[in-house]
């Protein structure tokens, strides 16, 4: 599957063999701020170690793609960044994760999860209207009080940032589950953005979508990276190549290689990376 490259993105960098299409996130970003710092993170489920002593930085201003074969711990790593792992009773986490130099273990989980929001593989709008999906995030826990008028600007801007506003502005009261799959996923991104997070986690956000919706979301992700640090898990190496600035390759719980996308795909240091990156393309 080759997704047509957007015309506005010329590409000067040498394309590694096998990779087609232009990189959307060309060159180095304008700036980058270190937002999160993963330090010697290990996660195990009962006796099974899913993530083994992983350390890496997460920066605003760039997209970090996590790649690796199924079951290597990508989702687990992502979920430990906003302490969703705590909802799994068997999960044990050790090591340190800092958000703006504060250990996330010291941050109230509900606050942390508004600063580090997440989008899932399956589009999962809430069973309410498009408007209410966003308003739900903006309101206090469980409260319904705030008036629609006062929330409207924030709802519109969140939808706008997710590139959905123009499509749904006349149908804000329609059930969100009646949107197309791609629109649903962008609504989920809008929802995640409505909390004004510092870090946006995306776990295979395009795997249930058609190529066109995928392309729309890829463009969106690249545009978002200046405002939020973006971490995306993907099985689609082409996609990682197109949108990522940095790439982390995981294998059986180990972080095998972390580096600039061009390096990891062009001239990986590790043999396992080399095999994975080339193997997937014959």
């Amino acid at each position, binding site marked *: 599957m080759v997704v047509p490259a957007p015309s506005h993105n010329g590409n000067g960098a040498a394309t590694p063999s096998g990779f087609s299409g232009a990189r959307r996130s060309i060159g180095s970003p304008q700036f980058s701020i270190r937002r999160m710092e993963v330090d010697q993170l290990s996660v195990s489920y009962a006796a099974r170690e899913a993530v083994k002593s992983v350390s890496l930085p997460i920066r605003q201003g760039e997209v970090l793609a996590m790649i690796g074969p199924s079951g290597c711990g990508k989702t687990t790593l992502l979920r430990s960044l906003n302490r969703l792992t705590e909802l799994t009773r068997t999960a044990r986490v050790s090591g340190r994760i800092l958000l703006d130099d504060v250990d996330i273990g010291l941050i109230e989980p509900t606050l942390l999860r508004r600063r580090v929001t997440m989008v899932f593989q399956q589009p999962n709008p809430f069973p309410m209207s498009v408007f209410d999906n966003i308003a*739900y995030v903006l309101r206090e826990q*469980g409260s319904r009080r705030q008036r629609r008028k006062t929330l409207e600007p924030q709802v519109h801007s969140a939808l706008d940032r997710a590139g959905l506003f123009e499509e749904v502005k006349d149908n804000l009261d329609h059930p969100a589950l009646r949107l197309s799959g791609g629109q649903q996923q962008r609504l989920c991104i809008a929802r995640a953005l409505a909390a004004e997070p510092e870090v946006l986690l995306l776990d295979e956000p395009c795997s249930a979508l058609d190529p066109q919706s995928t392309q729309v979301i890829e463009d969106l992700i690249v545009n978002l990276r200046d405002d939020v640090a973006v971490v995306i898990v993907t099985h689609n190496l082409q996609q990682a190549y197109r949108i990522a600035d940095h790439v982390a390759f995981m294998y059986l719980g180990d972080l095998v290689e972390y580096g600039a996308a061009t390096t990891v795909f062009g001239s990986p240091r590790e043999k396992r990376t080399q095999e994975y990156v080339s193997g997937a393309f014959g």
Partner: protein
Amino acid sequence: MGAPVATPPASPPSGGAPRKPSKGLPQSGSTWHLSDRIGLAICWALGLLFCAIAVAIVAYLFVQGIKYLRPEMLFTPATAGFSQGQTGGFSDAFFGTLIVATMGIAIALPVGVGVAVWLVEYGRPAALARVTESTIEAIAGIPSIVLALFGTVIFSSAALGFLSRTSEGVVFGRSFFGASAMLSLVALPLVVASTREGLSAIPQHVREASYAVGKTKIATARRILLPAARPQVATGAMLGLGRIIGDTAIIVVLLGATQNFAPVEGAAFPFNYLRGAGTTLTNFVYEASPTGNLNQPEKAYAAAFVLLLMVLALNAAVDIVHRRARKVGTWSS
């Protein structure tokens, strides 16, 4: 009405006859064995038979009901008399049914939904959750006459005397309060089971999507999960209501089964009525039937017809809730 509908299974059920080694999926019809065909025919016949029975009951009650029911019966209390023309209507029974239904479900619904949310979303401590589960299953299996007996013990206690009539230090124990409380136990297991089913059907990632924007478990349950499970909650409530308005044993034992309201003197409205004894439609039908004390079969049919209409209305309400929910859509996988 819920007649079983027999549809051909996707693959032939394994009957007694040896099967031909089939390659891939069996083709429609052509690979069906004679025994399967006979079995299917029996299923269809049984299904049709049940349909016929249900239709016969409903049709008969409709004919009799339309013949005998007069609207004023719903608003005229029963009185003593020598002929069916003199004995008034059954308004006390009609309103009695409405009262126990309202009060019973008003207890069973919040408690049942709360229990279901706790079991599905928290389930901690695990031992207590298991005990609760089996308790509710046990309640579902207890005949309502046993619940009624148990209820007389509880509501005749001095501590609960304020819920019924007390004379000369003896607590009567029979009241709308007592009957409704016990009837809520009849409805509770249905509410819990149905709500649990609805909650369990929601994909885990939907909950996590709510937690992942900083919502607490309680906020998620209130604003996302329960609204999503609304059709099943409604189904449970309607099934529970059906059981409540259909119950007779608890009415006879715990409501007093008088033919009229017997309000407690000196108590403020509406507590004078709720603390007093009364009756319901099921009890009226029983009493008015040829075997009962009143022996007014025409009014028995009229009251039974009203009961039937109530049950049909409940079914229709469930249907509407489900149809609305379908409009909202659901998650893939």
